[in-house]
């Protein structure tokens, strides 16, 4: 009797477990299929976008009139951004696929610059036409390789989840068609990238990576770097210092100095350029207590700090309080013209007013002796170009970098429409509207609203 009951109970338990296991299995499969489908969609979409992109660039080659060329180039720009989005959804991060992505970005840059230009006044020149031809060829090769991969994926029913595992297990011998296919695509693009970027007009991105070329001075030693850091940190006692040199991957040489107070364990970190010994950034890690001084006092302290460290002629441009920290953004001012690219940020602790952070990264990258040209348009003429709905509240001259990466002298107007504040830059020579941006309002804390 007992045996029968036991058998019965065990049988039920077995069936129960089996059923539960089956359900779990079903669920796992459903999730896997879902993830797989997302990858598949992104991949096939990428392949499709490359098709469209290639065709569209091909069309522009045949066009001559501004009316058709500008919309076509705009379309190219839109497609590249969609293709980039698709690449971002594929699990290729740990695989060398950046060259292809850079190609997409190059096409996007080129098409945007040419599409926004007035092609009536300044049509495509020979160089640009050649560039367009080479982009057409390159995108064609990528399209071709991608199509091959796509064909194999469909024919052999290949799954992206296997790519995940292949990449994760890092199995060199594993024969994974997708991974190999993408490697071929990458190789194809790599063959071009060196030669086709020669035209300096289309290298805004590369230019930005060409860091700190404007700074001058002698190379400093490790000891000098430590001394410099001590001077900035202004720490009492005798902090322990550690210095490291930058690795080979860095575009410029710098020392990383860290000072630790043996008593309080406070740590100060700082990077200093080897050439000239300029401070790139500085952070003092410590807990900040309740605010005791106000933002205005803090901003004066920040300014005094910059003065003592030879950052002259800076204008306070933005200030903000984050809990017990005041953050200040300063920009260079040359003859009353603000140079927005030259920005220095200072972080002040509002408990005792000490400087706990400093960043001159952008300043060092862009600062140089500038000849600020004359404006051929008057302030009044520029103001007349502004949308009449904007109520202008403040105006000054400023040097900004426009969408094409050129530095241009502008009139800067701050104005309001209703409750919103806008910053409008009008070119001081062509009276073109270079930039219009809505300035950020404070954001509600949703905890209190929802």
């Amino acid at each position: 009797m007992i045996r029968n009951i036991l058998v019965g109970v065990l049988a039920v338990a077995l069936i129960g477990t089996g059923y539960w296991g089956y359900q779990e299995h079903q669920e796992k499969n459903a999730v896997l299929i879902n993830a797989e489908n997302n990858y598949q969609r992104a991949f096939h979409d990428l392949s499709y976008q490359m098709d469209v992109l290639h065709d569209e660039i091909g069309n522009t080659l045949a066009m001559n009139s501004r009316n058709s060329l500008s919309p076509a180039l705009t379309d190219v720009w839109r497609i590249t951004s969609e293709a980039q989005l698709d690449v971002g959804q594929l699990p290729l991060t740990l695989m060398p696929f950046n060259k292809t992505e850079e190609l997409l970005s190059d096409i996007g840059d080129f098409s945007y610059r040419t599409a926004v230009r007035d092609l009536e006044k300044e049509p495509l020149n020979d160089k640009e036409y050649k560039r367009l031809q080479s982009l057409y060829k390159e995108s064609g090769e990528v399209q071709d390789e991608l199509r091959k991969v796509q064909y194999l994926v469909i024919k052999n029913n290949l799954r992206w989840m296997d790519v995940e595992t292949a990449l994760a297990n890092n199995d060199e011998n594993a024969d994974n068609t997708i991974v190999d296919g993408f490697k071929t695509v990458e190789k194809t693009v790599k063959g071009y990238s060196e030669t086709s970027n020669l035209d300096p007009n289309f290298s805004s991105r590369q230019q930005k990576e060409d860091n700190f070329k404007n700074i001058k001075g002698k190379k400093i030693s490790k000891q000098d770097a430590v001394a410099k850091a001590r001077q900035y940190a202004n720490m009492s006692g005798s902090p322990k210092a550690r210095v490291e040199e930058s690795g080979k991957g860095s575009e410029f040489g710098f020392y990383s100095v860290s000072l630790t107070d043996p008593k309080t364990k406070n740590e100060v970190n700082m990077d200093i350029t080897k050439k000239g010994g300029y401070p790139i950034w500085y952070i003092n890690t410590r807990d900040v207590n309740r605010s005791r001084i106000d933002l205005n006092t803090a901003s004066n302290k920040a300014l005094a700090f910059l003065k003592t460290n030879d950052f002259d002629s800076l204008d306070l441009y933005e200030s903000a309080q984050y809990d017990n920290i005041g953050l200040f953004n300063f920009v260079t001012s040359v003859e009353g013209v603000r140079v927005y690219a030259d920005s220095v940020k200072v972080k002040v602790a509002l408990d005792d007013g000490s400087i706990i952070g400093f960043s001159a990264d952008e300043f060092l990258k862009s600062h140089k002796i500038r000849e600020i040209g004359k404006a051929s348009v008057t302030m009044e003429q520029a103001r007349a170009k502004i949308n009449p709905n904007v109520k202008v509240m403040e105006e000054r001259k400023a040097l900004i970098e426009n969408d094409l990466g050129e530095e241009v002298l502008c009139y800067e107007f701050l104005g309001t429409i209703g409750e919103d504040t806008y910053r409008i830059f009008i070119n001081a020579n062509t009276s073109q509207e270079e930039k219009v941006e809505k300035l950020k309002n404070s954001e509600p804390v949703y905890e209190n609203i929802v």
Partner: protein
Amino acid sequence: MKVISSKSKRLLLFFFLSVCISLTYETSVHAFSGQVIQRGAVGDDVIELQARLQNIGYYNGKIDGVYGWGTYWALRNFQKDFGLPVDGLGGLKTRQKLVGASNFNGKWVHTQIAKGNQFTYYGGVPIEKQVKPRKRAAGGAKAQARQTARNNGGAKNGNRNRTAATAANVPGGYSQNDIQLMANAVYGEARGESYIGQVAIAAVILNRLESPSFPNSISGVIFEPRAFTAVADGQIWLTPNERAREAVIDAINGWDPTGNAQYYFNPDTATSPWIWTRPQIKKIGKHIFCK
């Protein structure tokens, strides 16, 4: 006689002093603290500034305790109309003029803010008519439960003082939710690292945002398949602490301890040999940062 006179003098002095003290006490309760209010400031003084400016019709925005652009223009207009130097700073003279020209019922305003009500503070309209109580979600009990849950969450999040202002400064181009998402990623990836190590992770996310080889949105970069291990193993959904959030704000505001790195890895746990081929920039804590 002599004794009495000195006593009376002392009494007089005492009386005089006590009046002085009570006077300063009075003003410090009903008007601003001594600070010069500058754009970007947050807190009670800003609430008072906004309420007073609204009271006399200069400020039409929300009284949220953050000195933003709207408050700035309102104060400048006030300064212009009242013959003060127009600098947008709430200095002593400006504050005195403002206190003289407007009314401020501090208790009422703070009560409305604490309750989360929508309200305005215009002069000439009974204040009771300027309040819209907060709409609660259907089912009082549910809202209550959520409220307590939130309170607990808030307590866990540390000692951030959120009672005064109902809004916060946010670096341009990013929303608080973006910052939260990044804080999650930073915390999941580097909660054992030093503060610099955390700023560095946030900086890498931002460097990827600018790079052509990566997606163009915060969420795109963070959730890119196989990009961050914390995303793959779900550690990104741990509740981040204040420090991670501070690190993110620092990175957004322009601190990049990595020297413009786009990749980083932990040499002890990295599985991909490819990552070793990237040119290395520097090491912070356990992570090596590369180009």
